[in-house]
């Protein structure tokens, strides 16, 4: 055999050997089994850890809450949307207690007013809707009620109601001093409540010879309307929802 032929043969054998070896060593084990990819990768990805157990797992133990939730307006809200991922808790209930959201931040993520939200979705302006109150003080998160026409004044005038509640006028209902028509609840600005127009109105309790309502047991401060305050109506100087002691 001629020298160059044998050399070339050796070289080709080496090259082909290198190619075969490269294929054996460099191509991953399961590459090409299911397509132009490593089939084992599917198993690797499928093997990842689940963090959210899903509402069905929660319902296995928390049947009462699940019943309440499904009957209410949060039926489509998953438990873990508010309580956080809880696959570990579902696996071992003693391992960790899922968190209980406090305050207003979480609720307003959905229910804070945003013009981009679909029309009709229940929204509030967190700045004026009972600020500083946690939502759960009034709303049951597992079965929230839709907004209704307020039955009491505090539904809208919460700030006044809370101020009055700690004042000397705490026991007086709003209607003692304000006459409110039913229309005001439905259409607040069309029918405005009245305010006491004369000094004699306050004098019904605070005049020297007045008889306060029988359920008022505290001592009522008395003033002589003829000499006290000149021509002003009482509430122009005193704040009746939080009257000063003296």
């Amino acid at each position: 055999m001629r020298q160059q032929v044998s050399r070339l043969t050796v070289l080709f054998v080496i090259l082909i050997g290198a190619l075969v070896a490269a294929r054996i060593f460099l191509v991953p084990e399961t590459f090409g089994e299911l397509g132009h990819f490593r089939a084992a990768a599917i198993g690797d990805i499928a093997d990842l850890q689940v963090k959210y157990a899903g509402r069905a797992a929660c319902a296995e133990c928390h049947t009462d809450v699940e019943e309440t939730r499904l009957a209410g307006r949060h039926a489509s809200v998953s438990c873990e949307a508010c309580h956080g991922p809880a696959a570990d808790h579902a696996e071992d209930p003693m391992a960790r207690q899922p968190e209980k959201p406090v305050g207003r931040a979480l609720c307003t993520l959905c229910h804070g007013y945003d013009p981009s939200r679909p029309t009709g979705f229940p929204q509030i302006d967190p700045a004026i809707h009972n600020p500083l109150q946690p939502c759960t003080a009034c709303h049951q998160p597992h079965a929230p009620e839709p907004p209704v026409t307020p039955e009491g004044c505090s539904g809208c005038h919460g700030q006044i109601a809370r101020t009055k509640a700690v004042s000397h006028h705490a026991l007086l209902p709003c209607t003692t001093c304000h006459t409110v028509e039913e229309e005001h609840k439905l259409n607040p600005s069309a029918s405005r409540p009245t305010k006491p127009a004369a000094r004699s109105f306050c004098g019904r309790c605070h005049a020297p010879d007045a008889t306060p309502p029988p359920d008022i047991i505290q001592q009522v401060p008395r003033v002589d309307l003829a000499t006290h305050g000149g021509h002003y109506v009482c509430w122009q100087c005193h704040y009746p929802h939080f009257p000063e002691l003296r």
Partner: protein
Amino acid sequence: MKGPESETMPDSRATGGGANQPVDRREFLSRSLPAGWVLLAAFTGCGGEPSAPAGGSEASAREAGSAPDSGSQAPASEVETSAARDPLAGYDPSQHKYAMAIDVDRCIGCGRCVEACKTENDVPREPFYFRTWIERYVIQRNGNTVVTSPNGGISGFPPVEEAEILRTFFVPKLCNHCDHPPCVQVCPVGATFKTEDGVVLVDHDYCIGCRYCIQACPYGARFLHPVTRTAEKCTFCYHRLVKGLVPACVEMCPTQARIFGELNARSSPLARFQRMHKIQTLKSHLNTEPKVLYANLDGEVS
């Protein structure tokens, strides 16, 4: 043919030209080639860290890193193909064809899907990495369209000037799991692929981080993981699907704006959704055949 010939050229020239030590050189060539190969084989066989994505030995390094992995996870008795391994036991991908539907009119932009996705899939918390995210479209009276997605919408959206608004809405986005995925087509190493059940996945052990797929995706649904330096994207929570669960974003959506299910099933929530809504897909002119279906989508969205 050109290569081997030119390799031998110096050799024959040396013989004919009567240079100093022609035999040595020939010997050197004939010995060094196999020797070099033995070295290379030895290197690929036992060397190589799993996390060494550098140079030409990359594929071999990854192969070496993944091989013991598969061996250690499966019981010693059944080191068979990946399809027979534990995580996929009892799961038949040929019985499924997944898709997601999104009702734009139901999205309230609360960002619970983004939060759930980041938690479930350990997506980096920095505001640049999202497997799913929410965009707010504000179409203004002057004709401009403003699209914002502050931190993907994970912590809500800032107030907008209402006087300017003509109409406004939220659009959740994610990988469209195209039936003709451009990202799979361009991957030079076969690290991203479409499974039999229609989900587009990334093989993190095999990805070389070249970013070609990130460029190719028309939906901006991919990113490079800052730590692993490999491509990342939505997997439809494949690890949940094989266990019979729905993706985390679907599970967490409080308004059921996201519907997940079987594309070919006659009765499934998705089939019902397809019957009851006018459906649109994103950038349908690209013929990518997305499997994320939108209902009530505005023409401004792309």
